């Protein structure tokens, strides 16, 4: 512990505070603008209103519902697809497993706009799929699956799950019993962190969704872009406020879950 009036410490503190100000300032501006009657005249002069929030719900309620629905569906899909993969990768430490892991992570390494375009080119003409919300779901699962796999895999590896499983086997537990009594409970911190990550990413996904969506399947971030482009600043701000109210609790929970999953000591 160094003394706090060390000039190096002060310089660092000032610098970090300035950066924090740069990051948080606009968020505060946005929240205030969302409840200001007239942003041009300022909040003090024009007063506080919830009218803009009301307008947002009138205009964009379906986008919010659709985004929440897609986020939940994405979560279910990544749980079903991703958790077994993480388990298998942890148990099969070979060249083939590393290759499979590499392949699974690929979708994250390629920009969403490229993946979105590829999906449209390959599947856009197949029946009603293009206009159905599951088209967006597919894109979101593609993009979030690696996060579920990696988060779960990290915890499984750290928990020395293969050794625990051998112990359970030696005590007579078959595959299913092991999976339920040993694997799932010990992987749960990673699964939880992965789940929060998946929901957070799905709620905010834009790069791919802008291409994938149709007028019938507009998600929250696409709606945000629409409001920024064609509505008053106050409506855009109010809509952003709604989004932040959904997102920030998820981010806080995610931080908590990630700390728990990595077993990091709580910071003072």
């Amino acid at each position, binding site marked *: 512990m160094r003394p706090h009036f060390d000039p190096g410490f002060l310089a660092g503190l000032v610098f970090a505070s300035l950066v924090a100000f740069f990051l948080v300032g606009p968020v505060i501006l946005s929240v205030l603008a969302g409840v200001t009657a007239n942003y041009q005249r300022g909040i003090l002069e024009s007063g506080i209103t919830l009218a803009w929030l009301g307008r947002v719900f009138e205009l964009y309620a379906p986008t919010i519902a659709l985004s929440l629905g897609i986020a939940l569906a994405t979560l279910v899909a990544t749980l079903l697809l991703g958790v077994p993969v993480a388990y298998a990768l942890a148990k099969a430490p070979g060249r083939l497993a590393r290759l499979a892991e590499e392949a699974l992570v690929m979708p994250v390494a390629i920009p969403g706009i*490229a993946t979105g375009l590829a999906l449209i080119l390959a599947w856009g003409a197949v029946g009603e799929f293009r206009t159905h919300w599951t088209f967006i779901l597919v894109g979101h699962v593609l993009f979030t699956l690696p996060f579920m796999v990696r988060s779960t895999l990290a915890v499984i590896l750290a928990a020395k799950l293969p050794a625990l499983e051998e112990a359970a086997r030696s005590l007579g537990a078959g595959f299913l019993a092991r999976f339920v009594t040993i694997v799932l409970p010990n992987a749960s911190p990673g699964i939880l962190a992965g789940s929060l990550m998946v929901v957070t990413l799905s709620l905010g996904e834009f790069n791919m969704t802008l291409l994938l969506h149709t007028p019938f399947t507009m998600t929250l971030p696409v709606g945000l872009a629409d409001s920024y482009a064609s509505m008053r600043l106050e409506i855009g701000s109010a809509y952003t406020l709604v989004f932040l109210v959904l997102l920030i609790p998820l981010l806080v929970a995610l931080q908590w879950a990630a700390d728990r999953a990595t077993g990091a000591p709580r910071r003072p």
Partner: protein
Amino acid sequence: MGNDRLALAALVAPAIAFLIAFFVFPLLMMARTGASGPDGLATYLTILVDARYLASLGKTVLLAGTVTLTTLAIAGVAGVFLARHRFPGRRVLTAFLTLPLAFPGVVVGFMVILLAGRQGVVGTIAEALTGERLVFAYSLAGLFVGYLYFSIPRTVLTVMAAAEKLDPALEEGARSLGAGRWRVVRDVVLPGLEGALLAAGAICFATAMGAFGTAFTLATQIDVLPMVIYAEFTVGANIAVAAALSFVLGAITWAVLAIARTAAGANVAAAG
């Protein structure tokens, strides 16, 4: 153990099938579409010859590179500072620095508009000071600010995690040998953070290359590569070029991440 292997394969099979159907197959289709235009395979060559696409590619790489270096400098200093000092308010400061983590690009774009747009605070302050309204949100400068905004939080987190793992004994050892503050940073701290900085830098670069939401929100006339792809696809209906450009863009980001991963030996992936 043959049974075991079969069981493990069965667990991976659904995800692999999904990946083949909705990732590998679409990418192949896109590669084919890229060569299906009037110029055939030469479409890929056009990208490197056509002045407009080449300029866009150059601009995007330059922007991504500048953003990466600036982010590493800012987040490196802030991250090491937060990892090294314990003081009241540290948690709050950390929370503030990582708040915009996972903000989508569109929202980041809106934050830049609030800062430096037509009704932005920077403009208001500048007007009060100089009488002239400063508006730069809708230009490459605005995009630069937006990408910084987007990249700093996650880079700070990576740097903090790596700095906390650095063995303090190394630093104390260097100090006991008479090394000054800057020498310690240069000889101990930076080499210790090399892997994390490389990984974070690669993610930052790849994300800035492919990010789209911020540019989309700020303006349609900023011709970074993702915007050009979008314009070719929607407005120009030039699907072959859009596909070819996407393929090249994907290849670049993937290669950057793969190289960084090989060099850093860490898990590296972009989210964007």
